[in-house]
């Protein structure tokens, strides 16, 4: 009888959902974040937006299977969640990179050749605007004025601003990020290996 109850299921059901759009594996920690949030926070459907924030904070985007999982947890229909996600510009359903490169296109940056910065980043990463690299390390987008006009042309990497950019400094920043990511990956891989040994 135990499996018939509609209480919190142990196993995230999301990965088995029909029409799972994204062919890529979704980090199962995302489902656990949802489970934890729902069990810890009182209340019901009004928790939707904060919960979506929490998930996007972790995954960088809101894959559809996760949206359906969230819907199930909050007693909403999937399209109700999708409607909210599609309404707010902040939420995104396309994966973003570990490093989100946001080139400022505000007036000051624009007249200071922001387009060149954009082009250089495109060449370096091999992706177009709005895209993400295959290894999910970088995503590239243009944003409106970030309020750093004195630093024009400027670039945000996640929450960090870089200013007075030239193609050369842009290359430096890009290489730095790449090597940081490599180091991170190596140490994470080492941990995983040591875990496997147990």
């Amino acid at each position: 009888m135990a499996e018939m109850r509609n209480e919190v299921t142990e196993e995230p059901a999301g990965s088995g959902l029909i029409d799972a759009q994204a062919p890529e594996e979704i980090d199962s920690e995302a489902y656990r974040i949802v489970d934890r949030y729902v069990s810890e926070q009182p209340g019901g459907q009004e928790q939707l937006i904060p919960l979506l924030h929490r998930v996007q904070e972790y995954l960088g985007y809101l894959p559809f299977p996760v949206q359906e999982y969230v819907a199930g947890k909050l007693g909403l229909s999937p399209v109700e969640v999708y409607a909210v996600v599609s309404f707010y510009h902040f939420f995104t359903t396309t994966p973003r990179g570990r490093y989100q490169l946001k080139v400022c296109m505000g007036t000051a940056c624009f007249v200071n050749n922001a387009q060149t910065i954009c082009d250089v980043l495109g060449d370096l990463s091999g992706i177009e605007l709005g895209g993400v690299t295959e290894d999910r390390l970088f995503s590239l987008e243009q944003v409106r004025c970030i309020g750093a006009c004195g630093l024009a042309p400027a670039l945000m990497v996640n929450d960090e601003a870089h200013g007075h950019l030239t193609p050369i400094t842009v290359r430096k920043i890009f290489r730095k990020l790449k090597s940081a990511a490599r180091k991170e990956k190596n140490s994470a891989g080492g941990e995983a290996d040591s875990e496997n040994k147990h």
Partner: protein
Amino acid sequence: MNGQLVTITVNGQEVEAETGTGLLDVLRGLDLDIPTLCHDDRLTPFGGCRLCVVERKDGRGGLIPACSTPVQRGMAIETETDEVIESRRRNLQLLVLNHRMECPVCERSGDCRFQELIYLYGVPEEQLLFERVRHPRDEDSPVIVRDPEKCILCGKCVRLCDEVQGVAEIGLVSRGLEAVVTTMLDRPLDCEFCGQCVNACPVGALIAKPYINEIPAWLREHRTTVCSCCSCGCELDAELYEGRIIRVTSSPGGGANDGTLCAKGWLGWDILSNPERLTRPLVRKDGGLEEASWAEALAVVADAASKARGEGRRIAAVATPRLTNEDALLLRHLVEDGLGSDWIGLGPEAGVRALLEGVTPVLGGPFSTASLQDLKEADLVLVLRGDPGRTHPLAKNILVRRHRQQDLPFALAATFTGGLERHARPFLRLAPGTEPALMRFLGRELAGQGVLDDTVEGYREWNESLESYTGSWAAEVTGVPEETLAQFAQSMAVAQKVVVVVVTGRGLPGDEAETARDAASLVAALGAKAGLLVLGEKANLQGCLHAGLAHKSPQEMLRVAREGDLGWLYLVGQDPVGAWPRSLSVRDALKSAPFVVVQDAFLTGTARLADVVLPAAILVERQGTGIGSDGEIRRYTRIVEPPEGALQDGVIIRGLAKRLGIELPSEIDTTAAAIGLTKYERREARLAPVGSMNPAPIAEGFLLDPSPQLFHSGSTTTRSSLLRGLAPGITVWIAPADAEAEGLCNGDAVRLVAEGREVLLQAGIDRRVAPGTVVAPWQSRSDGASRLIGEGDEVVTVQLRRS
């Protein structure tokens, strides 16, 4: 401070209105024509289309939307100023910009609110310069076409689907010009196909495929009648052309259904023109059934009746609970008064059993003591046995509105559900057939708290018999945590008005009579604050019971038939071979009866065995009255003539009586008083000790949910090819987690194995299926998973094997 009577000024005249009520309601109450596109009285105010703007002249405001503005003290409103008109015209213009104008070929031309308003207000000719946003038409669903380029984003469909239907299959996705009404990931519609969205659409953005035709709106004849597919008795607005139904809708504010329908009532009308309809009486000659004239057929039937009487053998009739009150009373007159036999009965329908064997011993008659209206008002509602969304869509709509619009909870205690559990607070998923356990636990718990009426006859014995039904026992039997049960008992103890609903229908596990008896006992013990509502399945079950048709049980009938005592058996709309439980060995019994008359619309399995078959009119081809499961009288109006040669049951009964020389009353009195008192008198409730309860252990495996009735219930409605198409019988639906555990993917062939029998079905993975359950829609007895299910109400567990 709502609810105060204040004076407001409308167009210079003083009007009294209550504060807090919608300004729109007040204005419309004054017969002022306030245009709206997004407003629906059944929904919470939206304020999207801005056509209902009026001007406020008392110093505040300016233009305000009447639909979402409550009445306030001292308001002064003008509804027809130049500014108001101009604003409406501008808003219409903005809507027109993104609306594909193809009125000359649009399905809704002439019946389009938007078109009317454009005509009325006139839209300025100059257009803003931008391109319409392109969206593809969705024609993937079997019955609904969605055309987003005509959509004006009033959101009525989205809100009805959510607030009234409780499904939320569609949503308003994206924003601004890109906004579109669509499903999750633009998948094809996979919903209940109730038609609420289509019927509310003010334009032609949602169209029902079966109702697409070239007949312009102004050539259609409009008729109103009542649906008799199930006992909800919903009002239908039918559009006819040359005597045929070409579209069915329903109007808000009309009947009990307030404009809502279900797939059956909305779409199932192709049944009427099914080519298999019987149009000539059939008489058995030389072993085969041959067409005959009405005169000949009735003569054969009458002669056989006289012969049986002459031989001193029993005359018997079994009727369907779909007969109108008039026809039911005529049948009783014919058999009881005319032929002198009290062998008259209804079939073994679950609703009949629940009311006769369950409710009658306790409450004194086969009545519900609560109505559908009470479902709206009671502060505690407990729905037992099943999801009314599958069997009684109107009751489900009321419950969803209760939850979504009034924020009043209702409890659902059932094993198999169809989506209503999402709205239930609490939802108690019971182990199959354990509803009586819940009732007895509640009885014991509430008695312990001293909130029951101990003056009811038999209370002491009943109470003593509940001794062993403790919380821990109930928790173990039902599978619901003891704490949840206790909390629920507590909420029932403090509730001021309680309604317990017993759902009946095919495929619900457990004994409906036992559940109804235990529920009736609890309700009786709760006293005046509680009511019981038994939802029977066939249209006029209540009326047929009142008419006294349920005199003998089907078991008794078949027993005397087998014993050879039955000389003449008249089956009115009943198909025992096709629809009664196998355990009754119907076929043998019918073969032992020397003369069997079947009156039906189709050549059913039973009709094939009959000596005479009489073609009958069905559903909206009939005239008369019925009683809905809410106890209210419904008036069935004939809006379509039956196929030539088929007659209404009552007409046939009169014809037969004439042949037999029996005088039937020329007028049948079906006023409420006359119907209500024909057979049963209400009396005081009487409690009796509960019987023992030993739930059978459930075998390992997945519970097989035969998911009946949302689209068709397995008798008349299975004859609708349209409805059959909505419930794919070749698919078994599996919960995502179970599918993963069993290694099954969408579309895999899977064998369902139960007790040595097995069927091969296609797997479908659906998040709406509860883990541990598989859903296989019941078709006819010989199809798909139905072959694993004996009678439809026993619990079947299956193993899944990947094929």
